[in-house]
């Protein structure tokens, strides 16, 4: 028990606080009592609680000494601090409007900033939890085929081993693959597992796993072993010590659990719930692991600490020459390999076949920029309002100076005031951010949370508060403390603010708002364009059915035939892929073709009713016909292909298909979008091929009953997978989900930015009015109408907005055009957008300033003038 006294010490922070804020004779008393209490608590309540109580008590002592007791014990600077605090609070209370404006503006800016920073730090934290994250690399390849050049994360089976034996700087290498959904049962519970991974045992050496039961080294040691995550163990067994239990795969293969590991955090680009032994599974499925042209696997390597990844990457080219026996002529050796740092994987969107959701880093930078802009605008508000208030407080400062206040003292007084306001806003912002966080994390689809229990978090918050206090408080403090005391208290104050800076800041704010409004408008318009544009196919009432189940796959033509009998089903057809994302490539070829004409094309295999299903229009010729046997070797083209070939009369021309057979062109379809609107419509050839693909039906009857009917048919095939379907419209929309979210977030930001700008404007207008209240009174007495006065006040602000718009227009035009250029099909950046933006700005500014000036202009001149 007594050993505690030596090992556990009271919190140093609290001691430091006491030492800095308590005068000497009180300090020693407090320290004694606190220490005695601390060790008492230590034994009864535990370390954490005792430390917490110590801190709490110390704070209460400081608080009571300075604010409740007499301050005779305080040092002078402390007394001033207390005095300043009281003055500041009094000031806040006296100018409630002013304080509310400031706090409202600052806290909404801060709230956005907090949320966005939370989101972006989460995104940038992807995969950083692995201890060796900086030494782990993913291998990807560049494929250099005749048609195109692309990057792909798929690598061949022998790559990992050959890297290990060839390069001493590679410490470990592992292959894995995300296997298809499997039906798994254990402990009388069955689930379809979406993410089963098959991996080399070395994954446990490369990535950081933590064993919950069993030993990491033994995981996957034998072929029939699997390792599962903690949550997976809980799901099946309700406990985690399940080593040596058995799980049944697909109802036939029993596998033994060799260990359980802690769940991988959600910010990993892959999360493994069930890991099976790579070699064993691959053998069981007859996968050729020595073939360099079989590329479905991911390869990750861990480099030694002193390894140079750049040098290693350069050496990777020798691998295929040395190990692979595939001459270039056979399409081999066309791939070159590269290393990619693990932490970059999440942000890489141009490498095909990556696991997990990728994020567009530039989008995150855009968000961060916008959050910063909103924060800056809120800060500007503070600077503006505070300097405007300086004029009113000029007398206070004067008196203080005459009584002997030093410049530094005044500076710290005003800074303290800013600090109080900033921290108050910060707390409010945190509170509101906390309230909207569930909504926000649902929206960005990430499990976000504030680390309230982490003291680093609070240090960061305090740091943020201090930075904002300094940035926004220093200028007003300098202005206010710089008044000449004589000028300051003389009745006719010679101090008049020209307000160039303030006007400049308002211009800046409105320019930023204008840019945001323009951006939001362009985003909205482009997205509604995407939604309404004629893609060439009809997305409505098309239901895409899952073909995962073997029972269905084996009897697919019967399945399709029976689906056609279901009431409400209009058309049933299959195609290699949905028309939204055609992926297969081919090359134009016909007898007597010249080399320059061998252009790359897309290739799509379909069944007979494909064109009816998606309602793709026929331009020339006819579509595939069931009765015509010859259609098995017929080809259809899209308009883009005909145009690219330069053919006058395409129908009846001969082409050579990818498999080298002759085929006749029987029809031409109207161009439809093969990819997202970002890409141009490329030449396409369509052939009759029912082999693979996506099954979809067009529903004409009631959606719910028809789908129920389809489900009945599905069930009759006794499948092991549950019935799954998706609406084609949803799939289409998902392709633009990122853009949609960007648009919605921008809209929110923009609204907040406008709100903040208007708050600032309102505050500024109030001050203009307050400053000129006598002038306005005199004008009224002399016969000016309310309207005259309103116009007089309004004119200044109109000019500011005009200037702001002149700056903002070109910047927004440049920014948004570069975004639009990413779409092959996009709206035009017309003058109407600028018009609408200007109207919105004027509208909001008009309401804000107008309201304030109206209030000023109807005021009775008697009230305005009677003060003197």
């Amino acid at each position, binding site marked *: 028990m007594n050993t505690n006294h030596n090992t556990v010490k009271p919190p140093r922070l609290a001691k430091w606080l006491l*030492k800095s804020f308590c005068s000497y004779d*009180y300090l*020693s*008393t*407090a*320290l*004694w*009592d*606190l*220490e*005695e*209490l601390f060790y*008492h608590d230590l034994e009864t309540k535990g370390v954490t609680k005792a430390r917490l109580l110590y801190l*709490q*008590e110390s*704070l*209460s*002592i*400081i*608080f*009571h*000494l300075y604010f*409740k*007791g*007499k301050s005779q*014990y305080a040092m002078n600077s402390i007394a001033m601090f207390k005095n300043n605090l009281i003055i500041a609070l009094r000031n806040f209370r006296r100018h409630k409007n002013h304080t509310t404006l400031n706090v409202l503006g600052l806290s909404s800016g801060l709230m956005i900033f907090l949320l966005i920073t939370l989101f972006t730090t989460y995104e940038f934290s992807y995969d950083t939890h692995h201890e060796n994250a900086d030494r782990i690399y993913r291998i990807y390849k560049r494929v250099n085929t005749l048609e195109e050049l692309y990057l792909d994360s798929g690598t061949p089976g022998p790559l990992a081993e050959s890297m290990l034996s060839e390069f001493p700087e590679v410490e470990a290498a592992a292959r894995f693959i995300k296997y298809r959904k499997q039906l798994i049962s254990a402990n009388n519970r069955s689930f379809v597992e979406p993410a089963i991974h098959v991996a080399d045992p070395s994954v446990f050496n490369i990535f950081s796993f933590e064993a919950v039961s069993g030993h990491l080294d033994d995981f996957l040691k034998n072929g029939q072993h699997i390792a599962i995550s903690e949550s997976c163990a809980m799901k099946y067994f309700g406990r985690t010590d399940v080593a040596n239990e058995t799980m049944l795969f697909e109802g036939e293969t029993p596998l033994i659990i060799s260990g359980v590991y802690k769940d991988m955090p959600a910010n990993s680009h892959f999360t493994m719930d069930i890991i099976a032994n790579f070699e064993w599974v691959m053998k069981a499925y007859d996968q050729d692991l020595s073939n360099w042209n079989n590329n479905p696997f991911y390869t990750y390597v861990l480099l030694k600490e002193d390894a140079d990844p750049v040098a290693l990457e350069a050496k990777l080219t020798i691998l295929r020459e040395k190990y692979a026996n595939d001459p270039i002529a056979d399409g081999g050796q066309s791939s070159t390999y590269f290393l990619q740092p693990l932490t970059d994987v999440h942000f890489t969107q141009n490498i095909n076949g990556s696991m997990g959701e990728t994020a567009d880093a530039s989008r995150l930078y855009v968000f961060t920029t916008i959050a910063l802009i909103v924060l800056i605008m809120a800060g500007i508000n503070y600077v503006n309002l505070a300097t405007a208030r300086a004029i009113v407080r000029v007398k206070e400062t004067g008196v203080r100076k005459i009584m002997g206040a030093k410049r530094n003292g005044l500076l710290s007084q005003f800074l303290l005031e800013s600090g109080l306001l900033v921290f108050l806003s910060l707390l409010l912002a945190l509170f509101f951010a906390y309230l909207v966080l569930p909504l926000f994390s649902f929206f960005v689809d990430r499990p976000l949370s504030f680390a309230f229990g982490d003291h680093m978090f609070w240090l960061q918050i305090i740091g943020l508060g201090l930075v904002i206090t300094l940035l926004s408080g220093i200028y007003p403090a300098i202005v206010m403390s710089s008044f000449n005391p004589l000028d300051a208290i003389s009745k006719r104050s010679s101090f008049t603010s020209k307000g160039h800076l303030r006007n400049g800041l308002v211009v800046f704010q409105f320019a930023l708002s204008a840019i945001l409004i323009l951006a939001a408008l362009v985003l909205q318009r482009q997205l509604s364009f995407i939604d309404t544009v004629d893609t060439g196919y009809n997305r409505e009432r098309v239901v895409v059915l899952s073909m995962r189940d073997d029972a269905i796959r084996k009897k697919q033509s019967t399945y399709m035939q029976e689906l056609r009998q279901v009431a409400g089903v209009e058309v049933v057809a299959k195609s290699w892929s949905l028309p939204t994302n055609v992926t297969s490539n081919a090359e134009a070829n016909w007898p007597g073709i010249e080399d320059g004409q061998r252009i790359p094309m897309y290739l799509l295999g379909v069944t007979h009713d494909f064109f009816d299903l998606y309602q793709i229009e026929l331009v020339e010729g006819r579509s595939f016909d069931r009765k015509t046997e010859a259609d098995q070797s017929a080809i259809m083209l899209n308009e883009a292909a005909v145009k690219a070939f330069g053919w006058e009369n395409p129908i009846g021309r001969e082409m050579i298909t990818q498999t080298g057979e002759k085929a006749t062109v029987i029809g031409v379809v109207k161009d439809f979008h093969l990819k997202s609107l970002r890409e141009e419509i490329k030449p396409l050839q369509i052939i009759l091929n029912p082999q693979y693909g996506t099954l979809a039906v067009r529903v004409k009857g009631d959606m719910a009953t028809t789908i129920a009917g389809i489900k009945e048919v599905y069930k009759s095939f006794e499948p092991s997978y549950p019935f799954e379907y998706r609406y084609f419209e949803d799939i289409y929309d998902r392709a633009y989900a990122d853009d949609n979210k960007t648009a919605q977030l921008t809209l929110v930001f923009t609204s907040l930015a406008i709100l903040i700008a208007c708050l600032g404007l309102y505050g500024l207008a109030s001050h203009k009015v307050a400053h000129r209240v006598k002038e306005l009174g005199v004008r009224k007495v002399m016969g000016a109408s309310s309207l005259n006065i309103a116009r007089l006040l309004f004119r200044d602000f109109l000019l500011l907005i005009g200037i702001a718009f002149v700056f903002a227009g070109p910047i927004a035009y440049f920014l948004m055009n570069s975004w639009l250029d990413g779409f092959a099909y996009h709206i035009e950046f017309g003058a109407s957008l600028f018009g609408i933006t200007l109207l919105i700005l004027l509208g909001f500014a008009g309401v804000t300033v107008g309201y304030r000036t109206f209030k000023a202009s109807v005021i009775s001149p008697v009230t305005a003038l009677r003060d003197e």
Partner: protein
Amino acid sequence: MKKLALGAFEELVLLTVGVLQDNAYGVTIKMELETQLKKKISLGALYAALQRLEEKGWVSSRVGGITEKQGGRRKQYFDITKDGIVVLNEVRAMRNNLFDRIPQTKLGWLKS
């Protein structure tokens, strides 16, 4: 001169200091009060009250148990003074006096 007032919390502290006799210092006073009042008392509030009581001359303090370490801790004992006893007595007398003037019928509630 204005008559010094004894606040409700001060009165409790003063009583406790009297009760604890020679062993009245921060921690013991706090603990005694907490057991009596059945609620948390912060050291800060206690110090503030003791400070006021000392200024009014109702408690005196003496130092005991200084440790050798520099900037070290110090045990500060409090004793109730004669004036302190007097003021406590006055307050009690006044209370009793007032209480006794509450009609008997109302006091009857205490029995049920």
